[in-house]
């Protein structure tokens, strides 16, 4: 069971997947005699109230609030000198490599870069722990560190110089080559992360790892390429091997004049188109509900179609169920009806002689299943409703009348359904057109302002961290859905099978990486599931430690309905190349 209490803006105690309680356990708490005693005690003036006196509201659990991401804190700190190596050297040696513990070995197995020697490089900075300071990273990220914010593994406050090891992850190649798992399990609902920026920070003194003192949170203003507010903040718990939800960050779009460049003369045409598209989508959803209701109305009316009365036949076994309307409301409606046994030959007239305790009527087409019960004795009869004499004439009159009403009502409802469905289609068409316009304009807009990326360099995601490690601004996305194939990997040049240690799918317009599983036949066949409407690319690491890439056009060959396809990969020799160089080669 997971309990979440007073998190963010919540004021409620939430329990997820609590152990259920059995009926037997509930019945153990049942004690009417004790209740009677309480009742008597209360009646004689010894009142019982299990409720306890109130406490002031400010002492209540929810008032104290949860973690609030304070983003506007003004902290005056000395800007420290950066000892950043500022290089893109993939052979960065961790500061504490000679003191690696068993625990860290496990962590490394969890975060495991797929290609030896290639990883997102770490930069190093020095900060004076006594005074605190501000780390300024090359991407524009700033991390404000309060004074006396570090402690060693024994809990002692650390003084003097501390080495900060820092790196950021902004694109799919950063994610892929870092080996950081991006699967998110939200109480059983699995998805992958789309990232708007991720960072890893660690601190060391004399090669020993440090942690952050409680309440001495660092304020991180991290560079981002994506200012969308949909992203949440997550922390990678490497010990538990999972991501933990940590609330939301806030977004700083940078100086207003630069925003104006992006927004073009103070207004953003793309946003307007997006808003219009969303409005049209709202209209579609509203109408979908109306149609759903209209369809349900038709079904409801259809279910009331009157059944043509049948005349009771002489010499056939039948009976009446004459019951008190209040006691058996479910069968009161059949009061004037006779029930004629369908199977006349095997009908047992002894059922007339029993005082039955209960009866169940279940409609079965034009017939009814009748189940009669008295203690252990059960009789089941299939019957058909019939009428006799005047009752039949009355029933026929009623039927004719009600059938006309029914037909009229059904015609009206069907007409309404038709009209509402037409309206829905019109709204859907309008939405598709608006979406298409928005996407086309947004594409043009992005291309037009690509050269002004400097404006984006100023965009920041702001959050507080209370632990060293990996923090990620993410939004869960489902795995790709659509076409599923078994990809037979071959070298495009030699046509020979390519064996891979890992394989992932990336979509060009989504900052996420989707690992693909292999089948049991061998590491040259992978189960690939992809969305045909997106620009898909496959990245893998070959068993000889070369990078293998299948570009968008490799998917063009998948035209039929076969389950297995040969996918040609280009092999990239990455020896001696930095991650930045590899990114250029693979087109990231």
């Amino acid at each position: 069971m997971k309990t979440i209490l007073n998190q963010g803006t919540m004021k409620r105690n939430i329990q997820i997947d609590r152990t259920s309680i059995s009926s037997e356990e509930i019945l153990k708490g049942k004690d009417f005699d004790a209740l009677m005693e309480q009742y008597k005690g209360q009646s004689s003036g010894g009142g019982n109230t299990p409720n306890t006196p109130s406490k002031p509201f400010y002492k209540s659990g929810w008032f104290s609030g949860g973690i609030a991401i304070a983003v506007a804190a003004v902290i005056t700190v000395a800007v420290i000198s950066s000892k950043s190596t500022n290089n893109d050297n993939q052979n960065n040696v961790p500061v504490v490599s000679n003191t690696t513990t068993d625990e860290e070995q496990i962590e490394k197995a969890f975060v495991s870069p797929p290609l030896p020697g290639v990883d997102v490089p770490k930069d190093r900075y020095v900060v004076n722990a006594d005074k605190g300071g501000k780390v300024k990273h090359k991407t524009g990220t700033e991390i404000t560190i309060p004074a006396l914010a570090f402690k060693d593994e024994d809990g002692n406050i650390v003084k003097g110089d501390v080495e900060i090891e820092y790196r950021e992850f902004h694109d799919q190649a950063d994610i892929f080559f870092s080996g950081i798992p991006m699967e998110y399990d939200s109480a059983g609902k699995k998805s992958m992360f789309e990232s708007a920026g991720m960072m890893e920070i660690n601190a060391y003194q004399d090669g020993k790892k440090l942690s952050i003192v409680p309440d001495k949170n660092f304020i991180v203003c991290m560079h981002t390429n994506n200012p969308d507010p949909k992203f949440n903040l997550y922390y990678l718990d490497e010990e538990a091997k999972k991501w933990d939800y940590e609330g939301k960050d806030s977004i700083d779009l940078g100086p207003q004049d630069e925003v104006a460049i992006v927004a073009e003369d103070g207004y953003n045409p793309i946003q307007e188109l997006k808003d219009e598209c969303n409005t049209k989508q709202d209209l579609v959803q509203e109408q979908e509900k109306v149609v759903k209701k209209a369809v349900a109305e038709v079904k409801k009316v259809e279910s009331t179609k009157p059944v043509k009365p049948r005349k009771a036949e002489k010499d056939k076994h039948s009976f009446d169920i004459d019951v008190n309307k209040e006691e058996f409301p479910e069968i009161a409606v059949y009061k004037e009806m006779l029930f004629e046994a369908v199977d006349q030959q095997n009908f047992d007239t002894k059922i007339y002689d029993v005082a039955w305790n209960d009866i169940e009527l279940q409609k079965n087409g034009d017939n009814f299943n009748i189940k009669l019960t008295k203690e252990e004795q059960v009789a089941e009869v299939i019957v058909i409703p019939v009428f006799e004499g005047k009752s039949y004439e009355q029933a026929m009159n009623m039927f004719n009348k009600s059938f006309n009403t029914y037909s009229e009502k059904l015609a009206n409802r069907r007409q309404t359904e038709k009209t509402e469905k037409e309206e829905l289609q019109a709204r859907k068409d309008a939405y598709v057109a608006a979406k298409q316009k928005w996407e086309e304009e947004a594409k043009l807009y992005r291309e037009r302002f690509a050269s002004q990326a400097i404006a984006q360099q100023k965009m920041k995601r702001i959050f507080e961290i209370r632990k060293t490690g990996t923090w990620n601004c993410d939004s869960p996305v489902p795995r790709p859905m659509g076409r599923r194939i078994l990809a037979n990997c071959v070298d495009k040049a030699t046509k020979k099978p390519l064996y891979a240690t890992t394989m992932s799918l990336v979509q060009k317009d989504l900052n996420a990486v989707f690992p693909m599983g292999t089948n049991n036949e061998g590491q040259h066949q992978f189960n690939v599931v992809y969305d045909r409407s997106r620009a898909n690319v496959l990245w893998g690491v070959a068993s000889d430690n070369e990078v293998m890439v299948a570009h968008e056009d490799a998917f063009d060959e998948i035209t039929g309905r076969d389950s297995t396809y040969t996918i040609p990969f280009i092999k990239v020799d990455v020896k001696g190349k930095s991650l930045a160089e590899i990114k250029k080669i693979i087109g990231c």
Partner: protein
Amino acid sequence: MRSMSLTGQTNIREGSVRKETEADLVREAQSNIKAFGKLYDKYYESIFRYVFQRTATKEEAFDITSQVFLKAMTNLNKYEDRGFPFSSWLYRIAKSEVYQYFRNQDKSPVLNVETDQLHQLSQEIEEENTVLNNEQLIEALASLSDDELPYVEMKYLEKRSFREIGEIMGVTENNAKVKTHRIIGRMRKNMLKK
């Protein structure tokens, strides 16, 4: 136990039934409180489950359930049959007792949810091209007011009918339906805005 007799023969019928109704049980208990035991036996588990759904521990739920029945016994003479099942009167007492308990105990209201229920709720709220994670859903549920939460809780977590919800909340079936849809609509809007 309902009892009835069924009589008939070829084309001849006659018959009568008589059973003890819930109204009989209530009337009997109103004249002799010891007879309340039958109603207690009948509704104990369902009232306990209703309370347990809204409390943190089973011990709390047992206490509150006892209090619900004690209150029902105390006020039984004021009970009037207005065409709703007797259980809806008990649920209304339970609802009131749970909230009273939280107010008095200086405790936060509790919401118990199953992962499956969250999935179902997300399907209700999600729209095309959106994926809501459980944190977003929980945050949205937690932000509902005490007046709003019971509608969502009863409809989507406990799968009660609008008729039953209306009876417990003291509103009409239609009103319960409208309120629930409005609350879901607001949740959707707020969540998608984020």
